[in-house]
């Protein structure tokens, strides 16, 4: 009775109370059981089917790499002047997807957004696997893969060092640092939960495996003290890191002098697009997962809604960036810029081209797919009905990813295929190897992701416990007495 009264006295009026992050005031033990139960339970049938498909696709990925290595980059659709094709598009796309994981885990942590706890583990895992998929492309794109070590600061056979004025060199450092820090951040957050899994383990192998990676974690407050500090620092370091990585990726383009690439808006524009596509991917993954693994009480509709709002915000920034690119192309008065934006991107054969009396752009369909998916689609998230309809969110989140893939395609390939001199113009189309290579990375991604949800707690147990009222020593449910002062 006392506790009940205390809630009424201390809390805000019921209509102003926020939706709790865990439904039904579930206890701490229930949380451990529920999340660990995903791993300890029997392997679900859908998991086996998905895993079989993913592994097959992953095999395709490696087969394509092998074919490329043994034959040469001629198996791709590259040709002058489009020397950066699907591989670079996929690289930028995958690495952009990774950004949402770090944003959720680091930036939302610094902003004390407590709702991040239910989704950060899965989002960080997504980051790591997406960066792995991304990392494949520039490596195989160099053509002579056996000379890939020239990218690292090791003197080659002529004693020549890499050239650090090139943004491609910066990329090597940015992406490898990003991967390392993401893995460390993810692993550090995992340690307390691996210890939970170790303590619950029934078989010797599990006890040993989880115990080995839990690094002797004992949940002592002396551990927690260092852990929390280190987590805060890693979050503080990851935040500028995540912003810098996609900025550096964008510099690959904007440091060049090609119309369509050579703009100063690129770094913030790329980062916003990365977060936008990443949240799209998080939604694509978590909306079905929460249902299939029965985690609706922990990953609630409120979480999905909040992610939709972030998608809306970043999607609108992306839309603004598109508009600004066009405005600057027109305002600069530069004929090459104007040609690039108005005649090779926007000129569709139905309205704009006839109105402007110009030839329709060869890739008008790619440009307009991008605009519809990235500018129009996120605007649906203004409506609560859309944000709370899980099927709607799922479909829209896939469109977000389609749109962002086309954005990379528009930037990379449309800019390239119309050079300064018309005799250099060409039309680029991918070969079957390009397509299979891209699909293959999905296999790689989903194989790792499925293994992750099967063997590692996909929700941070300790962190979710930390945001429940039962864990707050100043909350009546955490044992605080009425009217007590601290």
């Amino acid at each position: 009775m006392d506790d009940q009264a205390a809630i009424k006295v201390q809390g805000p009026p019921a209509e102003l109370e926020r939706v709790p992050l865990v439904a039904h005031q579930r206890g701490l033990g229930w949380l451990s059981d529920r999340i660990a139960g995903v791993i300890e339970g029997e392997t679900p049938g859908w998991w086996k089917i998905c895993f079989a498909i993913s592994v097959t696709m992953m095999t395709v990925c490696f087969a394509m790499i092998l074919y490329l290595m043994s034959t040469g980059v001629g198996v791709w659709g590259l040709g002058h002047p489009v020397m950066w094709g699907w591989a670079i598009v996929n690289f930028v796309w995958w690495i952009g997807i990774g950004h949402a994981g770090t944003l959720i885990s680091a930036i939302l942590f610094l902003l004390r957004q407590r709702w991040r706890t239910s989704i950060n583990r899965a989002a960080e895992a997504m980051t790591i696997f997406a960066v792995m998929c991304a990392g494949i492309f520039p490596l195989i794109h160099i053509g002579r893969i056996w000379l890939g070590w020239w990218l690292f600061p090791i003197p080659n056979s002529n004693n020549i060092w890499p050239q650090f004025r090139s943004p491609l060199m910066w990329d090597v450092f940015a992406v490898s640092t990003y991967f390392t820090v993401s893995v460390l951040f993810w692993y550090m957050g995992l340690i307390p939960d691996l210890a939970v899994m170790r303590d619950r383990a029934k078989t010797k192998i599990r006890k040993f495996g989880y115990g080995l990676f839990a690094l002797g974690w004992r949940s002592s407050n002396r551990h927690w003290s260092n852990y929390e500090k280190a987590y805060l620092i890693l979050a503080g370091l990851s935040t500028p890191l995540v912003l810098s990585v996609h900025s550096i990726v964008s510099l690959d383009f904007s440091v060049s002098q090609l119309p369509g690439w050579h703009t100063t808006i690129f770094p913030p524009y790329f980062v916003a697009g990365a977060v936008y596509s990443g949240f799209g991917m998080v939604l694509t993954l978590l909306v079905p997962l929460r249902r299939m693994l029965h985690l609706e009480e922990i990953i609630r509709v409120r979480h999905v809604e909040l992610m939709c709002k972030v998608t809306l915000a970043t999607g609108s920034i992306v839309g603004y960036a598109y508009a600004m690119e066009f405005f600057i192309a027109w305002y600069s008065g530069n004929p090459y810029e104007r040609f690039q934006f108005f005649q090779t991107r926007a000129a569709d054969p139905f309205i704009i081209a006839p109105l402007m009396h110009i030839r329709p752009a060869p890739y008008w369909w790619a440009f307009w797919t991008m605009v519809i998916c990235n500018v129009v689609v996120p605007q649906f998230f203004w409506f609560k009905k859309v944000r709370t309809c899980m099927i709607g969110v799922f479909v829209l989140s896939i469109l977000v990813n389609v749109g962002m893939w086309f954005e990379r395609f528009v930037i990379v390939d449309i800019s390239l295929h119309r050079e300064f001199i018309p005799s250099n113009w060409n039309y680029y189309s991918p070969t079957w190897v390009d397509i299979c290579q891209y699909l293959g990375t999905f296999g790689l991604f989903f194989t790792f992701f499925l293994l992750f949800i099967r063997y590692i707690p996909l929700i941070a147990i300790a962190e979710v416990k930390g945001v429940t009222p039962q864990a707050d020593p100043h909350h009546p449910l955490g044992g605080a007495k009425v009217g007590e002062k601290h």
Partner: protein
Amino acid sequence: MPTSFAIMAEFETPAAILHAAEKVREQGYRQWDVFTPFPIHGMDGAMGIKNSKVGWFSFIGGCTGYTTGMLMIWFMNAYDYRIVIGGKPMFSPFSAFPPSYELTILF
């Protein structure tokens, strides 16, 4: 009567363990600890633990990383094997900044 070497207590709520920790601290005990399934806000103060040293290590690591990056790029492109690019200066802190910055974070 056997001497007791250690004592252990279990608490139901975070508030209870927090207050118990404050009392143990007041008594002046040194070798003791609190085990919780999640970090409890205010427990460091209640136990009298000083600010973790992790921050200092990170700071030193960051400084080392940045210096390493700058020195490495200067050594490679401006000292050991000079590479002329567009007649620009051999070493420029601007183009060397992005990799050095990444190394700051890595270290």
